[in-house]
Each structure stands twice: as C-alpha cells, then as structure tokens.
C-alpha cells in the first residue's frame, strides 16, 4: 500500500530543500562568472596582468592591475599597522575597567561606529582632514594643507572601518579568559599591564589572530570609504617620495571605475581584478577559519 502521508512529507522536504538552495544559485552564478571572466582576462596577459598598468582603450591589449594590487597592499598594511595595536590597547582598557565611565562611553561610540555605512566613514575622514587643515591654519598659522585625497587619508578611513570590529572581537576574547588563567598571572606578581600583554594576549592569540585576518579581509574588499579619501590612481606612485600624500588606487576602486567604463579592455581588466581580490579575501578567510579551529583545540 502506498503511504500517502510519507509521500506528502517527502515532497514537502524536497520542496523546502530546493527553496532553501535557491538563494545560493545567484551567489554561485556570480562566483563562477567572476572566476571564469577573471581567469580569462588574466590568461590574456600572463603574468603581465599582475604587474603592468592598465592598457590604452581600443588597443585590443589587456593591461594589468599592478598599481591597484600595490595600492590595496599599502592601504591595508598601514590601516592594519595603526588599527591592530590601537584596538588591542582599547580592548585591554575596556576588559580591565569594565565599570569605568570611559569604557561605557567608548563602548557606545565604537559600537555605533560599527553600524555606520562605510561611505559615511569615508566622508567623515574627508571632513576630519578639512577640519584639521583649518585648525592648523588658524591656530598654528602654518599654511600647510594635509591632502584630502591621499594614501594617508585612505588608510585612516580603513582604520576606522576595521577598528570597531577588532575592538569588539578582542574585548570579547579578553573578557572570556578564565579566572584560573587570571589567577595564574597575578599569583606570579605581575602587574595588570604585564599580565595582559604577556599572558592574556598570548592565551587568546588564536582568536585574536583570527579576528585580525577577518578584519583585514573585510577592509580589503571596501570601496566606499576610499572614494573620498584614497581617491584612486591608475599608475605606480610609490617611486614618488611623497606618495603617502598623493592619491592611490586599489583593486576595489579599479573594479568600480574600470568596470563602469565603456571600454572592453578595461572591463576585462576589472574582471581580473575582481578575481584576484576574491582569491585574496577567500584565502585570508580560510586561514582565519583554520587558525580558529586550532585555537579551539588547544
């Protein structure tokens, strides 16, 4: 005898499974489009794609994304060099002085920043530099102009993007350190500062390194905060000694600008850039997951 109820339930389960997989279809499609177009573009100019500048439109030649890779690397490195130590310091303060007013106020400000659209963070950085310039002119009577469109302002914007995430993650890692480890540290006569830097950070290093890698992959993929800050450039600028104060390109800005251009060669270049970015972000993410797993095993 055919069991109607069991057939009905099987049909339901199948329907639900198919529906549940639906959202993945566009994602998979997007993923394979980037991979296919990206690999095709890169294969047209290999290995030049990785170090050459973009080509001349109409030339039929696909150039490269060298300056954008360098730009992303520089922006992300500076942001990380500022953002990581800063968020570690703030997180240590917040985990040590849980009750203090400064912690509460800082916590509110930083977690609000977490929710900010990143384009606003770019605008804020832009505005911040204008304010700084006015302040320098008015109070110090020096007529220097900090450039709004520069490596520096781009890095600052990315720092502000990564800071709240890192702060929240590191603070949680530190707060979840078991009391037995705290007792171990303090029973050795360590000051709070030494206990934090030499013991608690070491104890939590697995989860902290994971957070740092995820934060890096996050800012690597940001375009919005760079629009009003790093601004973009299509050429190598690092040979210029003052390059920190000049605009710089990035992979994300290149994908945005070249991808919207009418030229076939540039659009192909944008696909290649997207593929490279995807690879970088994915590999960071995979390393982060791997370390996180190890951290739980200890």
């Amino acid at each position, binding site marked *: 005898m055919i069991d109607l109820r069991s057939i009905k339930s099987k049909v339901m389960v199948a329907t639900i499974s198919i529906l549940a997989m639906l959202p993945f279809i566009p994602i998979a499609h997007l993923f394979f489009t980037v991979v296919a177009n990206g690999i095709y573009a890169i294969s047209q100019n290999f290995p030049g794609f990785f170090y050459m500048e973009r080509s001349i439109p109409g030339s039929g030649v696909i150039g490269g994304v060298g300056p954008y890779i360098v730009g992303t690397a520089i922006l992300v490195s500076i942001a990380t060099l500022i953002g990581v130590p800063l968020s570690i310091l703030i997180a240590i303060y917040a985990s040590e002085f849980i009750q203090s007013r400064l912690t509460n106020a800082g916590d509110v400000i930083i977690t609000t920043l977490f929710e900010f659209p990143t384009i606003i963070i770019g605008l804020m950085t832009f505005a911040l530099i204008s304010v700084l310039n006015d302040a320098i002119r008015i109070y110090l009577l020096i007529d220097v102009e900090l450039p709004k469109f520069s490596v520096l302002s781009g890095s600052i914007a990315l720092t502000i993007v990564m800071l709240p995430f890192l702060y929240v993650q590191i603070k949680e890692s530190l707060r979840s350190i078991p009391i*037995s*480890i*705290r*007792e*171990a540290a*303090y*029973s*050795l*006569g*360590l*000051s709070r500062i*030494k206990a934090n830097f*030499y*013991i608690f950070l*070491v*104890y939590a*290093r*697995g989860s902290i390194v994971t957070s740092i890698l995820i934060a890096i992959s996050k800012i690597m993929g940001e375009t919005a905060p760079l629009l009003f800050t790093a601004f973009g450039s299509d050429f190598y600028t690092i040979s210029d000694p003052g390059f920190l104060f000049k605009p710089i390109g990035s992979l994300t800005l290149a994908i945005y600008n070249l991808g919207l251009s009418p030229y076939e060669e540039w659009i192909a270049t944008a696909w290649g850039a997207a593929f490279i970015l995807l690879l970088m972000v994915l590999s960071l993410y995979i390393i982060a997951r791997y370390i996180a797993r190890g951290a739980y095993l*200890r």
Partner: protein
Amino acid sequence: MIMIKDLNVWYRDNKILDNINLDVPRNVILTIMGPSGSGKSTLLRAINRLIEIYPGVRVEGEIYVDGVNVFKARTEDVRRNIGMVFQIPNPIPNMSIFDNVALGPKLNKLVKSESELRDIVKWALEKAYLWDEVKDRLKEPAAKLSGGQQQRLCIARALAMRPKVILMDEPTSNLDPVATNRIEELMVELKKIVTVVLVTHNPAQAARVSDYVAFLYKGRLIEVGSSSQIFTSPKNELTEKYITGRIG
C-alpha cells in the same frame, strides 16, 4: 613564618572569615581542612592578597609573611615572594613547557641572562619531579601534558620564583591516585626549602603530609594543632566530627 592576626574578610556584605588568628612556623606543611564553603580558599588567597582581584572584597586585620606586613607592601612584591598552586592545573596551555616555568623569573626580571634562566627552569622542574619527563620536549605546549604533569608544571612555575612560601589550594582534587601520590611526596620534599600551606578536603591526605592542621568551619578557625594531636585527640567536637566524616 606566617602570622595572621585578627583577619576578617567580607565579600560585599557576607562575612566569610571571622577573626582568624594563625601562626605557621618555617619549613613545615600546615594543612587547612574544612567543609566546602568554610572559607579555606579565601584564607589562602588572603595571604598573598590574590583575593583582591575579585570585586567587592574587603579585608581587615594583619598578615605577616617573613616579618613583612603584606597589607603594607606592594601587592606585586607580596605575590612574587609567595608561590601558589591551584585546584585546577592552570598552566598557560598554548605556551611552551619551558616558557610556563620561565614566566615568573623573566617577567619579574629575576634573572640576568638566558643561561641563568635556563638553569632556574631546570632547577624548578627537577624540584617538581618533572624534569626527566619533559627535558626533551620543553618547547611543546603545556596543554600536551597530562593533568598530573600540568599540576607539577604549575608547582615548578611557582618554585621558579624562589618563594619562601607556597600556597596550595586542593592541588590534587582533580588528579588520579597515582598523580596524587607523586604530588604528596613532592610536598613533603618541598618543605626543606619552603613553607607549605595546603588546603584539602581530604582528611586522609592531611594526615599523610602535614605537620600542623587547622580546622576551619563556617569562616571560623575552630582548632589548630600538630597533625598527630588533631588526628588522635581533637579538642573540639566539630573537628572530631569532621575527621571522622560525620560533617563536611
């Protein structure tokens, strides 16, 4: 060696220790016994002021360790001169065996050179009966050791500070009988170089290792005496009930 005078401790509004007076001579093992919640750990943590890392603690009274009033000295200095071993072995799991022992001397700048540090780590591990088992794997993370080995590592970590006093809070309560036995032998050996204050739940362990026994009940010190006296002719009825297993 340790002199406790009129010690009172509160957690917020709860009085945990009530007017404790206790003297511990040099190079002995004094065991604090008592039922759960009687304040044994609190008393132990008052001696090295570790209790102050908990919020809401208030302490009154005086404690002298080697002639120094601990409440007048810097907390860091007090803790540096008093080693402590805990109920759950607590090495830093992702730090190497070597680094766990080297931590104290290194961070407190007690050594002048790498070779001096290596010597002191070796000495401490030998004293803790662990050297032979770990000498070829000093770089491995401490998490790889067994529970008993981890506890001996913690003893070595405490010894590496060259303390005069070691506080042990139920150091064997999470270990199997073999590991417990090793630690008990070790304690007896250690009293040649330090004064040991041991907390235990286990009257049999107290009888095996201690020179003196203090019985704590509901925050009050009921009786103190030599081990033989407490176990053969306790003066207080509560003490007798406890060691014969009728309370606790």
